[in-house]
């Protein structure tokens, strides 16, 4: 499974979204599920899925799906 699909699966599962709803522009606090609680759940799921521990600054910076890919890149996760 590609890292892109892995990340999409995380977003779909945590935020109860369909695959087509997980776009680069998907943004924190613009959908009900991605509120502050959803945010923590998302980060925890991303850490589990990619076996990383995110820095607090990155957790706070995670504002969109696209940003999520950028942040994961800092932890060696590539999205080719």
């Amino acid at each position, binding site marked *: 499974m590609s890292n892109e699909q892995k990340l999409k699966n995380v977003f779909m599962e945590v935020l109860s979204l369909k695959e087509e709803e997980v776009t680069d522009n998907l943004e924190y606090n613009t959908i009900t599920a991605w509120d502050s*609680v959803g945010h*923590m759940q998302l980060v*925890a799921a991303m850490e589990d899925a990619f076996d990383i521990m995110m820095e607090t600054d990155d957790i706070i910076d995670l504002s969109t799906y696209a940003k999520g890919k950028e942040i994961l890149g800092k932890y060696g996760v590539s999205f080719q």
Partner: protein
Amino acid sequence: MKVTEAIWEKRNLGVDCLEIDMDETDSLEQLDQVLENYKDKNYIVVKSPVKHERFLWGLPQRGFTYIESQIVFEAKKETYKAPSYMAVMERSTSLKRVSEQDDIIKALEKISDDVFDTDRITLDPSFSKEIAGQRFKNWIADLIRRGDYFLELYLKDNPVGFVIVNKDDGASLAGIYSNYKGKGLGMVLIKKGIDYVFSNGQKKIITGGVSSNNIDIIKIHLLLGFNINTIKYVYVKH
């Protein structure tokens, strides 16, 4: 029925306020008598128990407007449990007590006027969010004067929020400073406040009334394993 002349609201809101807390045994006739006895009051707040149609219909008939429900939560130390995903935000945070008066004043200055954007004062067109914010700060100052502790939540080296704790009653007011809102820190703050209270010997926490308008805080309490203790309707009349 508990009737209180809320004299602090003269300072906070510029009104002569009467607060009436009703229970299941109270009647509208009793309420009418109280209103007659306190005709000089120009802002009346009535809290009534839920489910009773005499209050639901009788209070609007008397010129009262429903403004919120207040939910009181409770948690016991042995059943309280935070969800595991909270660890992601909690790992870089700590709670520190602010004791020096000057430091408390500096901290109060970080509390923005819109810290309380869901309470009945903010939502009342007779008042404003600025008045609600100042009322909140006055309330905090009153609690500190009576001996409550002012604790600040730190995210690494940055203070991001506060919680007021009373060693006997538990945590009361809390808020995240405006630059850090919407980052999941509210839940961490409430959890840390609860941990502090339980670590100081209390076995049970009963909260003050949480406004039904504050969906985020209701969600947080439920996610932290709190149960609902009571709910009251709140009506106001000018």
